[in-house]
């Protein structure tokens, strides 16, 4: 528990380290590097030995060529056996690098085949030599006295755990080197960034679906019931003498129910405006502009419906921009212009107010930027002190089917 690399395991207390799988993992890691390379080396040596020494110049070039060609395969194999030494997180899938880095990958594969395995072999042999020697000597010590045999046994028992340390240390170093060369950090980071971006988009989509569901539930449930209630109360008012105490109460109840209905309608539109789903961004922005206390000219012309997430983000961003300028800018006129340019939605909100809008001042601009960022868009602001203010949103929209 808690050890992700061989070197971390080494720093543990001896009993804990020796009981962990790391010594065995290290041994296995080194052995499975030695075996294939050793086999290749043995084959080459056999080939050379079976010919006369004159034939060596003829045989060597193809052997060297074969070694060079085996580089990519060895790099892949080295990456695969990293699994033994890297538990959590597991190494990602092997990727071909580009350019100079590719040369490094292949070169590392070649060096593994030619040289590094020899060091692996040396470390394994040196580490296991003492305990193995003791055990062999013990097996052959038929004529020795019991004191000698006991000493040999004790030496083996002490030497075997000690051998785990150089094995694990070297295997850890080899794994770190392989990781550095074969799994470059930038590639992994890039991959994670893509995944984070995707998951953010998925979250935004799920969030939007949930908002629509809430809107539908409120519309079909509470809103209809409240309307029905106001009808009942309205009819009750008709039947009551207008000067009665009951009429006064019913009138108050009627007014409160109507007020609740108005508030609920505003709430529902804030959750998700139906006109956006039904008619798209241009109509929804025009309607939002109609609600603004500041005079707003709307010129949004889009050739097609945009992806649902883009429409929602753009709509709420425009609403927030209009609310902001009504609150802070002291503008008398504003305009919203929207176009689709090369699959990028460009929305500009312009006002003739006093300017000086500062994203850092917490005037809602940061929230606006966040909304746009969720759909990979960006926000540009020009707001010199004294005005005018121009807010420009750019949101990329790839061609997709119109969303309902």
């Amino acid at each position, binding site marked *: 528990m808690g050890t992700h690399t061989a070197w971390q395991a080494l720093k543990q207390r001896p009993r804990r380290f020796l009981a962990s799988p790391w010594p065995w993992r290290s041994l296995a890691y080194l052995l499975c590097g030695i075996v294939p390379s050793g086999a290749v080396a043995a084959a080459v040596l056999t080939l050379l030995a079976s010919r006369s020494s004159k034939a060596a110049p003829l045989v060597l070039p193809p052997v060297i060529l074969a070694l060079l060609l085996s580089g990519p395969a060895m790099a892949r194999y080295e990456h695969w056996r990293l699994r033994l030494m890297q538990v959590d997180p597991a190494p990602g899938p092997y990727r071909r690098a580009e350019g100079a880095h590719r040369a490094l990958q292949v070169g590392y594969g070649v060096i593994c085949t030619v040289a590094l395995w020899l060091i692996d072999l040396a470390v394994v042999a040196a580490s296991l030599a003492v305990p193995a020697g003791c055990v062999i000597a013990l097996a052959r010590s038929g004529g020795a006295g019991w004191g000698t045999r006991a000493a040999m046994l004790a030496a083996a028992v002490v030497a075997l755990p000690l051998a785990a340390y150089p094995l694990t240390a070297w295997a850890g170093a080899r794994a770190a080197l392989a990781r550095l060369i074969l799994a470059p950090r930038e590639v992994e980071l890039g991959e994670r960034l893509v995944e984070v971006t995707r998951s953010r988009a998925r979250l935004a989509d799920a969030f939007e679906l949930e908002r629509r569901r809430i809107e539908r539930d409120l519309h079909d449930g509470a809103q209809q019931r409240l309307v*029905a209630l106001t009808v009942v109360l309205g009819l009750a008012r008709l039947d009551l003498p207008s000067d009665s105490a009951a009429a006064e109460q019913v009138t108050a109840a009627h007014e409160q129910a109507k007020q609740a209905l108005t508030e609920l309608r505003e709430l529902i539109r804030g959750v998700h405006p139906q*006109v956006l789903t039904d008619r798209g961004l241009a109509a929804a922005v025009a309607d939002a502009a109609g609600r603004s206390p500041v005079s707003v000219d709307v010129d949004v012309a889009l050739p097609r419906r945009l992806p649902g997430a883009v429409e929602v983000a753009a709509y709420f961003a425009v609403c927030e921009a209009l609310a902001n300028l009504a609150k802070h800018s002291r503008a008398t006129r504003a305009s919203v212009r929207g176009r689709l340019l090369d699959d990028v939605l460009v929305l500009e909100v312009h006002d003739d107010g006093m300017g000086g809008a500062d994203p850092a001042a917490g005037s809602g601009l940061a929230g606006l930027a966040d909304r746009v960022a969720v759909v990979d868009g960006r926000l540009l602001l020009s707001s010199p002190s004294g005005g005018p203010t121009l807010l420009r949103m750019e949101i990329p929209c790839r061609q997709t089917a119109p969303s309902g």
Partner: protein
Amino acid sequence: MQADRPLRIVLAEDSVLLREGLAGLLRRFGHTVVARVGDAPALVAAVEEHDPDIVVTDVRMPPGFSDEGLRAAIALRAGHPALPVLVLSQYVEQTYAAELLDADPRHGRGAGVGYLLKDRVGDVEEFVDAVQRVAAGGTVIDPEVVRQLLGRRRDPIDRLTPREREVLALMAEGWSNAAIARTLVVTEAAVAKHIGSILTKLDLPPATDDHRRVRAVLAYLRA
């Protein structure tokens, strides 16, 4: 309270609770609900079957729970130019009202048409009055929608006096001179004078016919 002319009404509303409430309300005022339906195809079928005096329909209905009711209303206006249609909506959005008004095969001389927020049905007498005005060929537009429309065009409207703007809003909602005079507590002659001034300032032709005037004003506001 009884209506001057009992109406035969087709009512389309998918919420059973509200549908029954509305039917009870209309009956209470002496009208007959000849068909109560819960979706757009049933609405069209009921109109074919009963040939009602007016259709009252919700915007959002099954199967898609989008704008089926509105689309059915638009289709009915196109297919039955003499059929008055009142659309009840949960949405203030003028986009929907504009689409309903545009679906007029007779260009301003068609049958009555109305777009009201659903909230208005709670004011039962005003609501029934709206139903009757639409059935009589009038135009009824929700005050909230008119406010939104007025918010869109500022330039010439800013030249109106506050009182003229009030009159313009009431005109756009579909009220007659007499009703506007009652609401503002002025004489009809004063209203007529305001209206003349408004039409001049907005460069609209004087129209004697109430309905045509309302539609001209609405067309102007939406332009």
